[in-house]
């Protein structure tokens, strides 16, 4: 995938991986297809009962052959420009990983793995929470 940061261009080997249930949101499927196709990325998915184990298996497939891994959840809504922007920020910032915030809405009581909202907790950790939505 070709990334441009200012006047500098870089060609990176990017792998996209997903830990998915057997059934899912078709909106997400089309986001994945329409966002990755322009960048020439073919997503890898692993399906199973344990989210973390499946994601690890997917990441293990590409860790030695790619520069960067893009993880995608089965319910994320995004586009090709978002992928490009995040990758540019990863390169420009020097961080080892970059995530985009997903703002919690009516899901305040949902504590399932993989969805850490950003704002401020008692311990100072940053989380993005709508006012009235308890950190937890």
């Amino acid at each position, binding site marked *: 995938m070709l990334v441009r940061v200012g006047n500098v261009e870089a060609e990176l080997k990017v792998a996209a991986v997903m830990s998915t249930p057997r059934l899912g*949101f078709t*909106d*997400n499927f089309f986001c994945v297809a329409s966002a990755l196709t322009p960048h020439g990325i073919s997503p890898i998915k692993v399906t199973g009962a344990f989210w*973390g*184990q499946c*994601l*690890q298996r997917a*990441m293990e497939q*590409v*860790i*030695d052959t*790619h*520069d*960067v*891994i*893009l*993880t*995608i*959840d089965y*319910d*994320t*809504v*995004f586009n090709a420009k*978002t992928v490009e*922007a*995040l990758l540019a*920020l*990863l390169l420009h*910032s020097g*961080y*080892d*990983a*970059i*995530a*985009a*915030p*997903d703002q*919690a*809405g*009516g*899901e305040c*009581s*949902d*504590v399932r*793995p*993989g*969805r*850490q909202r*950003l*704002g*401020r907790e008692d311990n100072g*950790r*940053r*989380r*993005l*929470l*709508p*006012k009235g*939505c308890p*950190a937890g």
Partner: protein
Amino acid sequence: MDEKTTVDGDFFQKVVQPVETAHFGLTFLRTAALKKMKKPWFLAKANADGEFTGGHVDEDIGFWKSWAACGNKLGLATHVSVGHAELMVTWPSRTAEGGKVQQHTTEYWNGGQKAPEAAWGQVN
């Protein structure tokens, strides 16, 4: 403080902010950094009572703790967000604008299977 969130307004002054944990919804990781981590990469830990009802570490959070322990840095892109697909219930309403009111499914189940107050014709 941001008007609508719990985040300080100055948090958005930088395009990337360091954070301790995040999600995996749309996240880039350098493979060179990942190689520093011992497996298993995603490990949950129960609380002192052996339960997962609070005070525990979920497997995604466990990943980021290990990530930091290896000297890796995690950043949050403050000006690039993603959407989160969620199931909502739409109820008919005679008082809400547009003739309908929406409710998250979690609220419905955790609230005793009751429709929002603005919903019309509910038998509770």
